[in-house]
């Protein structure tokens, strides 16, 4: 056995360990597109929904922000559309990548990934909804970034490990956002828009280099 054989053995071991415990068919392209959707949604909100701000939000005497339902519901709709489009795109692109890699979409591995990603997301989502119900809107953006970041870090154990760096960035951004009340919208744009495009591009260029 030569040195090359031993090296082949070691890389074979590593490859099988990864393939059997991680879902590897995530494409950076889904990150780039998710970022674009977020920017489009943010632009729409900024130019269409926010100018009617006075009819959306009222700062009452006890400093609680009251939101007028129609435009707020529109904001939520935009959010849901952006999220929905991102998820759908990620699914389609992952399915295509999985086919290319000879990986299967629905295996115990990918199910584990989904569950572990969803746990912080669902917990965070419920928490944010509870807060919104009681008219506490101030921390919404930072909470979204925080829980999303945590979900990414958790999920990184079951898919491409580099996702955790995106997770760390979102967590940091969410914390800084909490320290600057009033700028939630801009931090949201930075996190869900710019960071997604940045990381998506990095991942995508690495994918193509390896191919």
């Amino acid at each position, binding site marked *: 056995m030569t040195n090359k054989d*031993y*090296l082949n*053995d*070691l890389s074979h*071991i590593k490859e099988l360990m990864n393939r*059997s415990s991680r879902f590897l068919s995530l494409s950076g392209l889904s990150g780039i597109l998710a970022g674009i959707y977020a920017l489009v949604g943010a632009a729409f909100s900024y130019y269409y929904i926010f100018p009617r701000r006075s009819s959306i939000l009222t700062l009452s005497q006890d400093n609680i922000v009251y939101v007028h339902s129609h435009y707020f519901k529109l904001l939520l709709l935009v959010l849901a559309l952006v999220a929905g489009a991102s998820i759908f795109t990620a699914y389609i692109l992952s399915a295509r990548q999985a086919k290319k890699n000879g990986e299967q979409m629905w295996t115990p591995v990918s199910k584990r990934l989904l569950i572990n990603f969803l746990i912080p997301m669902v917990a965070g989502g419920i928490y944010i909804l509870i807060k919104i119900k009681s008219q506490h809107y101030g921390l919404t953006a930072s909470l979204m970034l925080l829980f999303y970041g945590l979900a990414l870090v958790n999920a990184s154990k079951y898919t491409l490990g580099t996702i955790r760096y995106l997770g760390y960035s979102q967590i940091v951004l969410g914390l800084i956002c909490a320290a600057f009340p009033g700028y939630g919208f801009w931090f949201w744009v930075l996190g869900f828009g710019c960071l997604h495009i940045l990381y998506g591009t990095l991942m995508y260029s690495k994918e193509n280099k390896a191919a």
Partner: protein
Amino acid sequence: MSLIENINKLFDHRIRLGMMSILMVNEQVDFKMLKQLLGVTDGNLASHVKALEKANYIVIQKQFIGKKPNTQYRATKTGREAFKKHIEALEKLIQP
């Protein structure tokens, strides 16, 4: 040479090495998944499973999920240690 001694003869086969690798990072794996990951036939896999089980490196657990038979494999403590030693030996051999 003592370095070569630590190279486990049992792992001198790609499929067995592969099987052990998978079982190192998963609590348990079933036959179907092993077959799919390693890309081997039923019979081929079965013969290697037998060899590893004989050496007490893996344990086999046969059960029924509803009416379908399901076979799960786990690595034993002995198996894990043997694998680790083998890896260490491989790494030492590569470094000049």
